[in-house]
């Protein structure tokens, strides 16, 4: 242990701690901007480039960046001396000198880390004026990019490279001309970008944002000709409350349903229903491949890999086009929901397809892109019309004069609003695997599971393994989150060294609860952990906790779909993948 003095306070911390973390441990919050460390995950950015976290260290001539300076025995640190405070303010003023400063209309206003520091440092005027950078603007299906607002913190570069191993974003050029851009200054749409959106999740300013669909939704809600239905994802209900000041991890399922109704949705259903459906189809596919394998078919593609996560789908289509037969052909829960809503339900209700608008509320930005995939549409009419993020929904609730805190709880509409606990846990890494195991075990063995929880596949560890005893057959499973961990598995698979039967992959750290459409975590990993705990509480509170026991799912198969992997299921609930390997690289 190391003892040092920070602002006249004695602090004892382990060797290797940064001055920034040591100060935080005794409640001294040194301002930082480029720095981000989502502890316990691989999300970390520490280039010490913004210089806002500088401190004075006795015996050193220059101010030191506290994020990149390790503690030493007897060190005497001042975080609020006159010299430090002046330097910090000057640095912030210089950042502002090349920033658009259009906060009033900036989509990041009130959630912007630069703005918060300006308020904190009491900067009340623009001290320096100079040339303004003219950089790229782009609007993709999922992400909106306005690089004029970029402060070159390089968090996006860190997540795109170290966390996701996608390698699209990085610094180019130097000095005033420097910017963060894809190869050859291409547009996102011409790169291997997976639209995971983690660059958006960590961007401190409004440079990288989600594409906003709130106005589009309002237009549809105001249109008397249209029937607009909602489907919110599992991870939304454990995070939405944060936008209204509730503790992270507060479950707001009932208020979520009410708020969607008050917004004017004609029917409020649940993506969790689609998640149960996914388990029915994917579970059947797992059993199908497993039985073929056990029957001696050595060519059957194992492991089978989950396919719920649209960024993961983009990732393997771009990087592993030779392995497209391994992922399950099951569509994502949101797309399964859309396909059923626009066929079975629309017919039942007598609503013409073109008048029905299916809107998904997602913790995700890649879902926006997924909605626009051609194969998920019929004659140009998409199964899910478009997707809003958790943040966009929160903005819309505030805009529509709804006091979220006093909303009553209400239930989702039937028949596509009923769901099991297995569906609820889709929102956390390991959740889809656990949900599938609950069903696969019971269908395969014909026995009731003695214990529903598969705790080995839970938690923030990057790659998790477990072996499940399926009536004497050891089923080997693996769960990965973040695409750099997925790459480790895929490289092994390509080399013929991946020894599992079932693999789950989610692109975002922690799974969907850490999705790029969620309320910003601002580097606080406790928020992700609280959401994860809430996901499992939601599961425990459900009367039905296995997908195949959801009565509305059973009914849907009985009256409409027939069997999992049956003709109609194959047509509506399964998809195929494309070779999207980039040609120039």
């Amino acid at each position, binding site marked *: 242990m190391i003892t040092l003095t920070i602002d006249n306070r004695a602090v004892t911390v382990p060797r290797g701690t940064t001055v920034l973390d040591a100060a935080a441990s005794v409640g001294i919050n040194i301002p930082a901007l480029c720095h981000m460390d989502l502890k316990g995950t691989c999300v970390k950015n520490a280039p010490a480039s913004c210089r806002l976290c500088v401190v004075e260290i006795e015996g050193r001539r220059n101010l030191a960046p506290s994020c990149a300076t390790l503690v030493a025995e007897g060190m005497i640190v001042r975080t609020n001396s006159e010299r430090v405070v002046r330097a910090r303010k000057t640095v912030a003023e210089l950042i502002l000198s090349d920033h658009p400063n259009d906060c009033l209309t900036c989509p990041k206003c009130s959630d912007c880390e630069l703005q918060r520091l300006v308020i904190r440092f009491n900067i009340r005027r623009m001290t320096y004026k100079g040339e303004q950078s003219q950089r790229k603007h782009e609007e993709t299906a999922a992400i909106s990019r306005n690089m004029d607002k970029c402060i070159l913190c390089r968090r996006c570069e860190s997540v795109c*490279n170290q966390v996701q191993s*996608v*390698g*699209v*974003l*990085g*610094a*180019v*050029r*130097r000095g005033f001309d420097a910017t963060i851009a*894809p*190869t*050859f200054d291409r547009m996102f749409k011409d790169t291997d970008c997976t639209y995971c959106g983690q660059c958006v999740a960590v961007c401190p300013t409004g440079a990288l944002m989600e594409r906003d669909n709130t106005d589009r939704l309002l237009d549809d809600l105001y249109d008397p000709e249209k029937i607009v239905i909602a489907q919110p994802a599992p991870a939304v209900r454990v995070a939405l409350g944060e936008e209204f000041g509730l503790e992270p991890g507060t479950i707001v399922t009932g208020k979520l349903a009410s708020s969607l109704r008050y917004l004017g949705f004609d029917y409020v259903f649940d993506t969790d229903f689609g998640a149960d459906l996914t388990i029915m189809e994917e579970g059947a596919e797992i059993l199908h491949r497993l039985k073929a394998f056990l029957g001696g078919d050595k060519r059957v593609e194992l492991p089978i890999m989950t396919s719920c996560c649209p960024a993961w789908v983009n990732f393997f289509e771009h990087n592993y086009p030779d392995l497209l037969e391994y992922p399950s052909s099951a569509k994502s829960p949101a797309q399964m929901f859309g396909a059923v809503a626009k066929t079975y339900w629309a017919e039942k209700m007598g609503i013409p397809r073109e008048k029905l608008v299916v809107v998904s509320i997602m913790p995700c930005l890649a879902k926006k892109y997924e909605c626009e995939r051609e194969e998920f549409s019929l004659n140009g009419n998409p199964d899910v019309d478009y997707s809003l993020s958790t943040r966009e929904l929160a903005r819309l609730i505030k805009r529509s004069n709804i006091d979220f805190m006093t909303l009553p709880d209400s239930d989702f509409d039937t028949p596509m609003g009923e769901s099991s606990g297995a569906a609820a846990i889709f929102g956390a890494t390991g959740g889809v695997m656990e949900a599938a195991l609950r069903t696969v075990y019971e269908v395969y063995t014909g026995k009731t599971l003695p214990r529903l929880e598969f705790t080995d596949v839970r938690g923030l560890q990057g790659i998790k393994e477990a072996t499940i005893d399926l009536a004497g057959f050891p089923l080997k499973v693996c769960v990965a989150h973040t695409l750099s961990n997925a790459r480790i598995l895929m490289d092994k698979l390509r080399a013929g060294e991946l020894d599992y039967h079932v693999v789950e992959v989610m692109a975002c750290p922690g799974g969907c609860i850490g999705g790029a459409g969620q309320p910003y975590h601002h580097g606080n990993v406790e928020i992700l952990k609280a959401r994860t705990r809430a996901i499992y509480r939601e599961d425990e509170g459900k009367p039905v906790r296995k997908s195949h026991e959801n009565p509305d799912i059973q009914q849907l198969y009985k009256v409409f779909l027939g069997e999992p992997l049956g003709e109609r299921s194959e047509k509506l609930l399964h998809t195929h993948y494309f070779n999207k390997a980039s040609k*120039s*690289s």
Partner: protein
Amino acid sequence: MKVSCEALRKVEDICEQFGNAPGELISILHECQNTLGYLPEEVQAVIARKLGVPPQKVYGVVTFYSFFSMVPKGKYPVSVCLGTACYVRGSDKVLEEFKRVLGIEVGQTTPDGKFSLDCLRCVGACGLAPVATIGEKVYGRLNPSDIKKIIAEFEE
């Protein structure tokens, strides 16, 4: 402009010479630039593939260092020194005059492929400031009014 297959094979050979090591990226880029005269997109993509790094990384390095160029240099590459000594003696005005006379910006090459224009920092001849080089030849104590005549020397 299309890079020949032969040139791309040369690039692959250079990567091999350096053991396809990502840590040798800058050395490989130097060698390729010396061999081909420039580093177009296709060349960078080949280097990225050989080294197993994202093309973005290669592009980031190429655009960072002024020695590297993505367009072919002219037959007579012009470099104007903007180092401190040259700058205080008016090399910015010399640069402006080169731009005007050649009709190109810094980093560009004239359409006939004859001249390219770049800036550099100090050629170690501060006593002659302001200084420019054309190919191997050094011109000192330049005045903007000299530029037209100097360029004309090469315009036979």
